């Protein structure tokens, strides 16, 4: 039975992915998430509203594919917080909400007149979670970021790449996804704290700090052993550092720009590799133990690539998997979304109904609950789509009042 969190209401100022991804996780478990957007700028503070990809190349503030993906199962209302009446309605909404979530730059909520102290004056046990690149305190509180900047400053960009090349970094905003995960964790933990003690609180989430917790062993190697990751021959992130494995890498396959990842974990995998490939080099005594293989990493990478280059990546991966060696084709989007039996069986790409876009597939969740599983059916909200449901149904305004507020520019 879905709807495990249907007793919770979130007053949601988030946008893009770093914020919207967090409240999405709560919405798909049934929390009532109410997105509040600015009618004056047609909600375009969230730049994804009007950005590609589009269905059938139809463009507009209600037609952004990424926006739809990140905002499924949420309600959307417009509220002009420059007006007194708009502020009053927000106060009414906060008074009946458990959580206020936002990922503006530091200082924006304060300027709107809704920082933590103001929110708390409306509702004593409110939970307020703010999320931005550098947090709300500290020398860089005015600095601005987006995913790639967060990744650069937190050490993650540098950690991805080949020696003697510039950093490869991340080809997407890994820290927008992950910042959203930390934000969801923060909201849920603060709810747990409230359930135990009755207390609300403010959580200040700085995505660069969250990112810097994801390189732990490299950090300790420096603080304990004085060994920096910035050193000759490092990083080499397709190789395995913790634990050491050889061969371990992404190797070329038969067709242009096709690749296979292979991880030979231990001596058993190495022996199996000799069996599976039948190659003479894979049975040489000098490579039989890890020390021998580590000493010849470059040479083994060449030999491995010689074998993989002669085969299709899926075919080679299947062959190696038969003997229990971790191997996987580097799947392109079509392959993992439309042709991977596992994502299909899991139900990983549910289709939603969106008022303007029609039926669209979106990211599902990588978890299944035995009792209160997630549900994704409704698309992201069009601008102000749920004004009547929220201002009428929740706050008790009449249809005439809502229409008048629309004309006055409050909604």
């Amino acid at each position, binding site marked *: 039975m879905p709807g495990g969190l249907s007793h919770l209401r979130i007053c949601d100022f988030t946008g893009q992915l770093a914020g919207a991804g967090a409240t999405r996780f709560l919405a798909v478990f049934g929390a009532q998430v109410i997105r509040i957007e600015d009618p004056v700028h047609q909600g375009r503070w969230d730049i994804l509203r009007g950005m590609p990809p589009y269905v059938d190349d139809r463009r507009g503030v209600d037609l952004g594919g990424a926006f739809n993906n990140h905002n499924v199962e949420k309600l959307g209302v417009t509220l002009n917080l420059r007006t007194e009446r708009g502020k009053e309605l927000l106060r009414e909404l906060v008074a009946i909400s458990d959580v206020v979530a936002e990922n503006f730059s530091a200082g924006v909520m304060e300027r709107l007149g809704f920082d933590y102290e103001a929110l708390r004056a409306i509702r004593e046990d409110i939970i307020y979670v703010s999320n931005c690149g550098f947090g709300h305190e500290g020398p860089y509180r005015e600095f601005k970021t987006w995913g790639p900047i967060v990744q650069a*400053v937190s050490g993650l960009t540098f950690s991805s790449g*080949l020696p003697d*090349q510039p950093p490869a*970094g991340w080809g997407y905003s890994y820290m927008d996804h*992950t910042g959203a995960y930390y934000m969801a964790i923060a909201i*849920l933990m603060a709810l747990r704290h409230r359930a135990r003690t009755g207390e609300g609180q403010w959580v200040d989430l700085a995505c660069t*700090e969250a990112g810097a917790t994801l390189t732990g062993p490299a950090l300790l190697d420096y603080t304990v052993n004085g060994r920096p990751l910035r050193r000759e021959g490092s990083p080499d992130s397709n190789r395995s550092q913790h634990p050491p494995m050889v061969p371990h890498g992404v190797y070329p396959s038969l067709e242009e720009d096709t690749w296979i990842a*292979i991880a030979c974990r231990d001596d058993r995998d190495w022996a199996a590799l000799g069996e599976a490939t039948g190659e003479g080099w894979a049975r040489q005594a000098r490579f039989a133990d890890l020390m021998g293989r580590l000493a010849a990493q470059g040479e083994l990478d060449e030999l491995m690539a010689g074998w993989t280059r002669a085969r299709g990546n899926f075919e080679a991966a299947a062959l190696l998997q038969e003997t229990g060696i971790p191997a996987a084709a580097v799947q392109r989007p079509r392959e993992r979304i439309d042709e991977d039996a596992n994502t299909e069986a899991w139900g990983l790409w549910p289709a939603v109904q969106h008022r303007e876009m029609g039926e669209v597939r979106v990211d599902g969740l990588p978890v299944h*609950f035995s009792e209160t599983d997630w549900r994704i059916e409704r698309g992201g909200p069009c601008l102000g789509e749920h004004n009547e449901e929220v201002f009428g149904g929740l706050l008790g305004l009449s249809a005439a009042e809502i229409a008048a507020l629309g004309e006055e520019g409050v909604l």
Partner: protein
Amino acid sequence: MTAAGPLEGLRVLELCDELGMFAGKLLADMGAEVIKVEPPEGDRTRAWPPFLDDEPGPDRSLSFWHYNTSKASVTLDLREQGERERLRALIARADIFLQSGTPEGLAREDIAYEALQETNPGLIMVALSPFGQGMPREREAATDLTILAGGGPVWSCGYDDHTLPPMRGGGNQGYHTASHFAVMSTLVALLVRDETGRGQHIDVNAHAAANVTTEAGSYSWLVARQTVQRQTGRHAGMNPSMPSQVKCADGRYVNTGIPPRRPESFAAVCEWLETLGLTNEFLETPLLEEGMRRERFDLALLAQDEELQAIFGAGRSAMNFLASKLTAYEFFTGGQRRGFQIGIIYSPEEVLEDPHFVARGFPVEVEHPELGRTVTYPGAPYRFHRSPWCIRRRAPLLGEDNERVFAELEREGA
């Protein structure tokens, strides 16, 4: 004494390999009592480098130190019937049973969810595996590398030069992502249990977690059947975008972010050059000044407006020129203070010395009493003002809590 964390009073029993150990840390550092069950010879990740002074030993792995802060350790030989009963007794008193591994490991009959739930109806069991349980590919062997390769992230990362392999980002992020979903899900189940009194089983699939953590890699295909292509240090996309990484005067790289696109940003670049005495050395200054003088830019006319194209080009070259004259740190802070979203590309250890991170107290000192010293660790991922994150104790020595935990079990009559 530190203030109580939000998970104070919560009991977690952890029986995890490398896939789920980070989930246990995330819960433990927020106040949950996490008991890690290890075999008598120790969890295999105790043998993972790097080591204290580069010498191996069960209590010397820095990787183990990082992933097991605030946890307790008990050893059980699960090949012995009596020890398995102890494990069941530990699970019977737990709120959460956190498990990770292969399907064979997870499917052990005596710790199957149905059996455990009978004695402990409130139990939340969270099981992480590479492909999910009962799934078509569940028997495949997997590591962080193969999870990220099959799951999508690797396809999107790498270099403009496609003869170089696509890249896996470092740090075992595939395990981290699965662990993040495990923790988010655990917390949802806890809030549900507060309402219903009942626990449940949660199946966490690492391959699926990677698949839904690729941003445009997935939704470009889902919405428009478009395939992103990798590029050096920036978002993979359908069409090539301009490079965004530049090497500074000190040899370190920066991400130059979005170049000047508004009259105010051109004014800021001009002021920056002027302050550094570089106005005349930069040959395209007149174009920057033109950009500064225009009232607004009509981006819709960019294709026809050759002067505007030249102005934008000059803005980009000015940023690259400034980077070549400054250290990465000077460029980063100088640019940010002028409103440019620029990022210095730090190596992880450099973050710990950055003044902002130091001022916020991000690096934390943790006592290692058996070594007679403290060690600097990465700190809080989030700042809770009432119920803060805190490393309650360094990672446990092997079996360090056997006596205490087993005595508690006796007292509780298990």
